[in-house]
């Protein structure tokens, strides 16, 4: 009986939690009616039941109707957690009821928080973990079920510039309260005590993780839904194996039925490839020098701090550096090469940081074993240390590629030309060998190019010639390109791991 009530409470809370999210993201409409009740009223009923159940369970345990392992006191941790809730509620209520300003409501909130914290901390555990949650759930349940707060409800506090509408506020409060109720229910389910607390924490963490992943998925789904129609516009599959997706294979031209973003895709791919080719050897070389050769001390500490700082330097600063330093040296115009170098410099610190970590984590036993065989240090690094560090290095590069592939600011400054070019740069076809230095020339590398994030930016800011849908299509392709790079990275990491362990 006790267990079933607890499970019912947790189940109800999970349902309201999920429905809260779907409502927040417009997946379920607040107007949906089940058995003559609107969604919000349903929430209300659910919270009434759950709240009553929690309080009943708490009291039943406290008076000894059911044997539980509840502690004597709830404890300060839970008290403080509820104090925070009390702070928010107290502040809100005073603002709504008395219309006091920010300072007043903060003070009131603090007082409430203090009282709640201390009050709950000294309550017996079975009461302290159920009663406050149950009361909150009951209040919220009454507000919703009795229709005090319905779809049309608006709260426009005079002290704030913002207005709050029910379709946003109700799901948010519902989600938060559902978490609390689920937590409390989970504690009840295990009969309080350390088992109960463990169960509660487990559920909270699980729901949070689930929430995070759900938000991510929603984000991706959103982009896919918005972008897919554009991506597939004019696409033909068949006959046979012939597939044509003009959005991916064409540029933007007048008099063309379907325009596409091929030049930008090529631009982004070359930028990333160029940056990686530049950053990996330099980064690994620097990491090897710093970890294996340089004497560990102030010098390496300073370099380490500097690399960390470089990694968190805003990309626009790198862009400015490229604009002021590289662009004038490459024929005074924006070029793909300048973009590759700037992105390469951005990637460099991360490669150094992760490679250092990876190299440091290679066991010293390998180095000793190699040295004891009379193998010199460089050969040891090359044939034992680096292979063992490679998976870690690749992980770093994967992370870095994700950042630079979507980078807009530096490209805007050093690479961009026309945002919607007709043709893609042909890097491989433009190599020319000359008899005089520098012996190799590549016109295409020195030309401006478009790139996916830059194109997206152009659509958003100016809307030059392209409508919003084009932007969503671009965003989707950017996502796919980044995922593609991840896939390559993960595949190579698996390859290097295999080599170490098979």
């Amino acid at each position, binding site marked *: 009986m006790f267990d079933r009530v607890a499970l019912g409470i947790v189940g109800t809370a999970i349902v309201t939690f999920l429905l809260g999210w779907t409502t927040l993201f417009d997946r379920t409409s607040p107007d949906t009616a089940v058995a003559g009740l609107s969604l919000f009223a349903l929430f209300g009923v659910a919270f009434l039941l759950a709240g009553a159940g929690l309080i009943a369970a708490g009291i039943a345990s406290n008076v000894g109707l059911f044997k539980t392992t509840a502690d004597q006191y709830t404890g300060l941790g839970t008290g403080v957690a509820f104090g925070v809730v009390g702070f928010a509620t107290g502040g809100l209520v005073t603002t709504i009821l008395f219309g006091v300003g920010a300072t007043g409501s903060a003070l009131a909130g603090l007082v409430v928080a203090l009282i709640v914290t201390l009050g709950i901390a000294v309550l017996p555990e079975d009461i302290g973990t159920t009663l406050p949650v149950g009361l909150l759930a009951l209040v919220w349940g009454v507000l919703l079920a009795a229709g005090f707060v319905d779809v049309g409800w608006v709260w426009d506090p005079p002290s704030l510039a913002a207005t709050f509408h029910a379709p946003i506020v109700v799901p948010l409060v519902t989600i938060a309260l559902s978490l609390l109720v689920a937590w409390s229910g989970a504690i009840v389910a295990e009969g309080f005590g350390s088992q109960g607390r463990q169960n509660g924490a487990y559920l909270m963490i699980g729901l949070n993780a689930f929430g995070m992943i759900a938000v991510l998925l929603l984000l991706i789904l959103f982009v896919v839904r918005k972008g897919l129609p554009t991506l597939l516009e004019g696409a033909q599959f068949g006959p046979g194996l012939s597939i044509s997706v003009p959005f991916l294979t064409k540029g933007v031209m007048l008099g063309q039925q379907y325009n596409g973003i091929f030049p930008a895709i090529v631009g982004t791919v070359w930028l990333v490839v160029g940056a990686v080719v530049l950053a990996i050897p330099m980064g690994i070389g620097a990491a090897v020098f710093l970890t294996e050769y340089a004497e560990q001390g102030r010098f390496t500490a300073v370099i380490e701090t500097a690399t960390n700082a470089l990694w968190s330097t805003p990309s626009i600063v790198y862009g400015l550096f490229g604009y002021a330093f590289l662009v004038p040296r490459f024929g005074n115009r924006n070029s793909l090469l300048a973009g590759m170098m700037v992105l390469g410099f951005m990637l460099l610190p991360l490669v150094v940081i992760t490679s250092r970590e990876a190299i440091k984590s290679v*066991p010293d036993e390998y180095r000793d*074993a*190699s040295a004891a*065989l*009379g*193998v010199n240090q460089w050969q040891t690094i090359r044939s034992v240390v680096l*292979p063992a560090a490679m998976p870690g290095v690749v992980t770093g590069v994967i992370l870095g590629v994700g950042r630079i592939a979507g980078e807009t600011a530096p490209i805007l400054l050093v690479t961009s030309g026309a945002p919607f070019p007709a043709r893609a740069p042909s890097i491989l076809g433009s190599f020319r060998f000359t008899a005089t230095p520098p012996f190799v020339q590549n016109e295409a590398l020195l030309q401006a190019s478009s790139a996916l994030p830059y194109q997206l930016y152009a659509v958003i800011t100016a809307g030059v010639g392209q409508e919003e849908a084009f932007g969503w299509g671009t965003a989707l392709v950017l996502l796919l390109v980044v995922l593609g790079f991840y896939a390559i990275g993960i595949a190579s990491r698996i390859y290097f791991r295999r080599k170490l362990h098979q």
Partner: protein
Amino acid sequence: MSDQTVTRTNDEQQSNSLTDQQPTSHTVDAETDEQLVDSWTDYEFEGEAAITVEDLDVYYGDDHAIDSISMEIPEQSVTALIGPSGCGKSTYLRCLNRMNDRIDSARVDGTVEIDGENIYEGDTDLVELRKKVGMVFQSPNPFPKSIRENVSYGPRKHGDVNVGLLGKLLGGDDSEAERRLVERSLKQAALWDEVSDRLEDNALGLSGGQQQRLCIARCLAVDPDVILMDEPASALDPVATAKIEDLIEQLAEEYTVVVVTHNMQQAARISDQTAVFLTGGQLVEYDDTDKIFENPESDRVEDYVTGKFG
């Protein structure tokens, strides 16, 4: 020899005093040992010395880890180094192939002669030295590579066998030589029968004992004269330990083996001569193994080998 007689008299006096139920004072003990220490350079054995150590001191910063040790190690035999934890056995062993160079704070004084050359002289080629004096570590440390690559690692890096793409390009592909080398070394290390059908498998998939024998094979592949082993069986179970012990005894027919061990029975079983180190990095007694375990000169050594002190 005369020195030894003198000390023996000293010792007899002391054992007399023991039978007289007089409490032994440490000063007396140390004095005896002091005189003993001088005499161990004179430990006489048949055959040639592979390694001659003279007045060796090692410091870690200000910490005096090895205190003026002189010792001759006979070739093609097993020399055991025993002593309580922290007395400097590993440090001493690492001096013999200059692995202490890899520790920044370590400073070594004195001479270690191998093949008549002082390895601490300025122009010693570390590569050649370590090819000549191999080392096996306490915990098995194979590389995360295949068994074959582990064994042929040394010769490949030294350019003695050229395999792979470059070898093929330069026309000198030694795959066959590598195969023979791997087989020979693994057989010497008594591992061949267990791994001959999976040479391309990763070495980390072997059991601890197999890994340790693989490390011995890896060391043998560079064709050393001397093999240093630092507690090579301490991480292994009794069966694997027995295999390593057999192996060490076999190896002594061809190689000079110096082995550090904490296990008295092990030292007694496998070694021809035993050196006892006591706290402070001093070599207290060095003699035939039988002598050390049955009738040691020093009381401290007797206490140690019988387990009363340690």
